[in-house]
Structures are given as C-alpha cells and as structure tokens.
C-alpha cells in the first residue's frame, strides 16, 4: 500500500464513511437477490400489513409468490422493504451523477475563468447570477420545465452546484497558473489545453474530489426533498423521498413508512460527508500533520 492509501485507511472517518457507503451501494445493487419483489407491484389484499408478516403476494404478471413483508406494506399494497432497497439505487445514482456533472461543468468553467483572464469577468458574473437563485427553487423550476425523469432531476440538482465548483476551481487555478512549473511548461511551448490538462488539473484534483463528495451528499438530500414535495421523480418510481411522501399521510398509524427510508437516507448522507471530511484532512497538506 502506498503512503497515501495507508493515510486514507488509517483515517477514522474515511474508513467509516467508505464502509457505510460501500454497504449501501452493495445492498441497493444486489437488491434483486436480497429477498425482494418488484417494488412497483401492488396487491390490494396486502394493504398496510404489519412488519414481518408473511403472505401470498400477487405480482403484476399474475404469478403469486409467498413473501415475508419485513417492513410491512404501504397503503397501495407495495412491499416497503423492496421499495427502500430499490430506492437506494436511484438516490446513489443521483448523488454520483450529480457530483460528476457538477464537477465536470464547474471544473471546465473554473479552469477557463481562472486561466483566461478575459473570460473571467463574463463567466463569473454569470455564476454570481446563478448563485443568487435559491438552489431548491431553481431545481424545482428546471424539473417543471424539463419534465420529471432521472436525467432531468440530475441536471436540475447539478446546475445550482456549478457556480460553487466554478469558484473553487477558479481560485485554485489562479494560484496554480503562477507556479514555476506552469511557466516552465509555457517556455517549453506546451499548448495551452495541454497545460490545463496535464499541469493544472491534476494539481487541483484533491480539493475538487472533496468538493465532489459534498455535492453528492447534498444531491442525495435534494433529490429526497424534491420527491417528498412531489416535485421530483413520479410517485411510482421508488425513491426514498417518494416512499416518505407516500407514508407521510398515515405517519401516526404507520410511522415505519417514513422512518425506514430515513434510516437509509441519514447514514448515506452522513457517510458521504464523513468521507469528504476525511479526504480533505488526508489530501489537504494544510491539515496534514507536520513532522519537524
């Protein structure tokens, strides 16, 4: 193991965050093999069944299977356990895709603004304008305009994050472009795109990665908020937000329909944030322990 890997593994919050996140990822990816049924299937005979009860469950294709409803069923007769596990796929996918998209767009804008001083004014004033609009409102407007599916939700959540990433990358590039090795590369006649790609981007990667985890964590939350408000993905798609929204009306009788997805959502967001904090500690030399 290289010193960096060792440092990452020895850091408590990186280890905890990584393990929890990996578990979440595995559980949602392996959902079909973890005793689940079709999360969209409804059986009118199994409405609001109790936790852990077993019974016959009719699938949409007419087959009937014996199934244990570990977390009960909701008011439409859907298996909550299956919906929560499958919901994880959407949440994690939205988190990762949003982070990648926001980092990509923001990274590009930030590099352009930081390196080409003529573009800086134009790009950054546009970003300032974007930042003036509240993130959730902007996302709601975008989903309403573009129609609700996973891709538009990702775009809608990523766009408000772009200015923040742009600012970060711009400030990094402003310092990095003055580094002697960048000047040396210019003296070596290295074309500007290559300077940006080979000399500047790799050295801005560590803080960018950390920012990415925070974007991902907030994206998972925002997706849940949008779904909960009924402004995100359509209610038949199992997402943690949708499950909670559906369970909200009968919270006093069936609190589990809100609490079970929350018990997955909270550790996921916590794990991503802890991972980000830990990465920052390990990767940022300012936080690194000094040895005299």
């Amino acid at each position: 193991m290289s010193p960096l890997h060792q440092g990452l593994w020895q850091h408590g919050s990186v280890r905890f965050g990584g393990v929890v996140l990996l578990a979440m990822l595995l559980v949602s990816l392996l959902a079909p093999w973890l005793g689940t049924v079709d999360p969209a299937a409804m059986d009118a005979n199994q409405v609001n069944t109790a936790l852990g009860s077993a019974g016959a469950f009719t699938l949409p294709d007419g087959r009937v299977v014996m199934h244990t409803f570990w977390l009960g069923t909701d008011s439409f007769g859907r298996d909550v356990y299956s919906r929560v596990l499958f919901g994880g796929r959407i949440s994690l996918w939205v988190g990762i895709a949003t982070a990648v998209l926001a980092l990509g767009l923001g990274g590009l804008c930030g590099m352009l603004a930081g390196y080409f001083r003529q573009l800086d004014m134009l790009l950054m004033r546009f970003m300032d304008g974007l930042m003036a609009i509240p993130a959730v409102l902007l996302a709601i407007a975008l989903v309403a305009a573009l129609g609700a599916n996973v891709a538009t939700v990702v775009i809608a959540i990523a766009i408000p994050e772009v200015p923040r990433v742009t600012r970060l990358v711009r400030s990094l590039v402003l310092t990095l472009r003055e580094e002697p090795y960048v000047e040396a590369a210019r003296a070596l006649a290295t074309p500007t795109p290559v300077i940006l790609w080979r000399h500047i981007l790799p050295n801005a990667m560590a803080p960018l990665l950390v920012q990415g985890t925070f974007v991902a964590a907030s994206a998972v939350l925002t997706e849940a908020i949008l779904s909960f408000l009924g402004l995100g993905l359509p209610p038949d798609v199992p997402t943690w937000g949708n499950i909670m929204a559906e369970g909200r009306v009968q919270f006093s009788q069936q609190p589990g329909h809100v609490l079970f997805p929350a018990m997955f959502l909270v550790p996921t967001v916590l794990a991503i944030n802890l991972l980000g904090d830990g990465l920052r500690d390990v990767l940022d030399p300012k936080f690194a322990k000094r040895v005299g």
Partner: protein
Amino acid sequence: MQTPVLDIEQLSVSLPAGADRSHALQDISLQLHAGQTLCVVGESGSGKSVLATTVMGLLVKELRVTQGSVRLQGESLLAVSPARYRALRGQAMGMVFQEPMTALNPVMCCGEQIDEVLQTHTNSTRVERRARVLAIMQAVRLPDPERIWQSYPHQLSGGQRQRIVIAMAMVMKPALLICDEPTTALDVTTQQEILQLIKTLQQDAGSAVLFITHDMGVVADIADQVLVMHQGHAVEMGQRDDVLLRPQAAYTQALLAAVPSMTPPPARALPDTPPLLRAIGLGKRYEHHWALQDAALRVLAGETVGIVGESGSGKSTLARCVLRLIDPTAGEIHWGEDNIATWPETRLRPLRHRVQVVFQDPNRSLNPRLRIGQALVEGARNFGQTAAQAERLARGLLTQMRLPDSAWDRYPSQFSGGQRQRIALARALACQPEVLVADEAVSALDVSVQAQILDLLCEVQARMGLGLLFITHDLRVAAQLCDQVIVMHQGRIVEHGLTSQVYAQPQQAYTRQLLASAPAWQRI
C-alpha cells in the same frame, strides 16, 4: 567564574522512526556567556534549528529529548512547567525568526504587538509601557516611531518588520537572544544593517546571542564563537578566527571551500559571434508603475551574463520579459535575428526551444504529479521529436546530470532540492536551447549543493556553447560565474560591464554600496 547564560550538556534529541537518521541532535554541549555571540552554522537538515527550538521549548511533539540538560542562568529548562517556560520566553529569552511577515500578527498594529510583550511580563501602566515601546523603537532605529506604532506589518518594508520583531525580542532586555536565520529573507544591504543592530543592542543589554545561520559571511560579521553542525553532530567548535581561518575538521574545510570568492577570475576571451539574445529599451509597466525601464542586454554564445540586484529591483521581470512569459510594454527582444517582442504566442511557440529557463524554488519548478520521465520528454515532444527520440535524448541528459536511470519513473517529491534542480536543468536542456535563463537557480540550495549545480552549469555551457543569463542576488556566485554583470536597482540598469571591472572599480555609488554589504568571511 560566573554561571554561563546558556549551558547545554550532552544534549540529544531523537527523530521519529522512519526518518533518515535516528537523532536530530546528538551529544551537543556548549556554554554561552553574557555579551557573547555563538553562531551555529550548518546546511539544511544539520539540526541547527532543532537546537534553537529545543532551547525555546518549542519542539514539535514528534521530537523528544533523550538525554542531556539545558540550563538558562542555572535553571534547568527541561524540567520547568509550561507556565514558567512562558514567563521565561520573552523575559529571559527573546526570539527572532527568519520571516518577519509570518512572525507578526497581520491584523494588529506594530506598536500594540510590542506593547503586548510588556503587558504580559510587567505590571507597568499604560503610559510607562508606551514610553518603553517608543524607546525600544528608537533603539532599533525605526524612523518616526509614532507613525510606526500605528502601522500594520504589511505597510512596512522587510527590514522594518524585522526591526519590529527584534524590538519585541529585546524590549525585556533578555539574558539570551535566539536568532534563527534572521537575515536570510532580507537583501544584503538590509542584512548588514540588521546585523549591526543586533550587535549594538547586545552590547547595550549585555545579552548572550545564539545565532543560527547557513552563511559563513554572516558568521564572520557577528560571531565570537562558532559551532559547526553536520547531521546532528557538533563537527567543530571554537573561536571565530580559529574556525574560519584555521578549520580543523574536514567538513568545515569543505564548507568554507564551497563558498565562492568575491574576487572574479580574469576575463575570458569570447569569440566575436552574433548575439543569441538581445534586448533594447525594454520596459514593463504595471498599472501606474514601471517594474522595468529601459533595459538593454546582449548574450553571446558561450557567454554568461549576470543580473544582480536586490529584491524588487526588476531582475526577474527582465528575465520573464526576455523569455516572453510576460509581455513587455516597450522595447525590442531579439532571439537571434527575430524581434519577437510583440509576436503572438502561436507564432512564437515554434521558436521557444531557443530560450529556456530554470527557476529558483526546487520544490515548485517541477509538476508534483508528473513522473520525471514525462517531464523530461515534454519539451522535445512539443518541438516535433518522436517519442523514441525524445526518450533517448532525455535518458542521456539524466545520465549527464548524474541522476540514476531509475529516476525516470519516480515523482519529484522523491528527490532532494539539488537533484530536483538538476532535473529542471535537464528538462530545459532537452529542448536543445541556445540560451538558458537561470532565475536564482541556486539560491535556495546549500552551498555545497550550489557548488555542484554551478559546476554542472559551466560544464554544460562549455559543451553546448550555451549563452547563459544568470539572475542572482548573490554577488559571490555572480563573481565566479559571469563574464558580464548587470547591476539593477529599482527597475533600472545601474551599471553594466565586465565582471572583473565592475567588482574592482565600481563606477556607481549603488554598486559600491552593494559590494560593500556582501558579507565575506575572507575579510577577517
């Protein structure tokens, strides 16, 4: 006999496991009496700063004192409580560090920072303290103390900031003053003034001074006794004149021999060839002030032209202009026949191999995320060589720079400062340049490493017929290396001529002052 102010016996400090040696300090003993100055000299990593921080009680917790004793006026420092230590620092010992900007609080005005020392250590009233602060400001020769009181550190010059730090250290008239490279970040003329000041204050207060430095010239100026350190060991200790003029240890002799002499060698005869690099009437303006004005220079094949001057004199601006890393506001730059001063980057790019550069800071001159091999082939590839050609050339250069072949796949962080500077040199040479610009290329290196790099530069120059534009603040290096020397001051060229003539008969007052300020141990 009176008790010494500082008495260190058999002191050893261990390094954490995994360091390159087991001890930062081993068996160091010394005695320092009131009114005496002890200079601790050594190269980086010799343990001289660890010695200072041990005395101050500021050792990082990874380092541990394993044996020995440190006594300040008879009181054992290794046993005192943190509270007592805090009282001793400031009262019985004052400290001056290398970089005054970081030693001062940027959001507190200077008068209050000195006042704070008095507030902590005395019960004086506000009025008494004010009088004492103004008096110490007078003593450190700060002009207009009332105004300086109100000034923030960034409003003062480097020399004035260091005077504030010295005032803070000396206001309590401590028995021991510890100076850790206090003049290294300063220009030579300022350095001279600060050294004088420390001497005067020491005489007035009768303090003992522990002075850490890497500069033999500074040692000659200020020391009574000298301790030479190497790899945590005391190599030699004795009276200044004995150590400098009659060094016993082989290491001390080597250290002294590596310091270049101020007397330039006789001028070389150079063949009369057309200049490779020429600048005429070059100027660079930022906002409302000219960083560089009316500069002219000429570099022939095989010739070394030195640009000397203090920080802010415009020498780096001149270098960056002739490299076209920044665009000049006025004047002409000729690379060979072509006047490239106003060429756009796309037209200039194919010619860039003609003029290459090596920068000062070995830590920042190489991309930390790029393997050495990748860095070395970059230039050659940009100028149209195939990957195989570029690699053959680069591997050849690696050998010439006396670096192992295994360096190819490693990252810059795995090399020492001197090795990194050789890699940066190889990277520049891989473009087969006609002119090499060395911008303070050896200034951040220890003298012995510096000597190696300079030898290497001369060797390469002789073989490739390279024109060398050598920018430095170090007059001794310039004396040994340069055929011509250009003296710069406040953005203008003050004097220009053959090195031997300029050093022997400086025409301008500024040049004379500059040459007189350079500390030189050969003078004693």
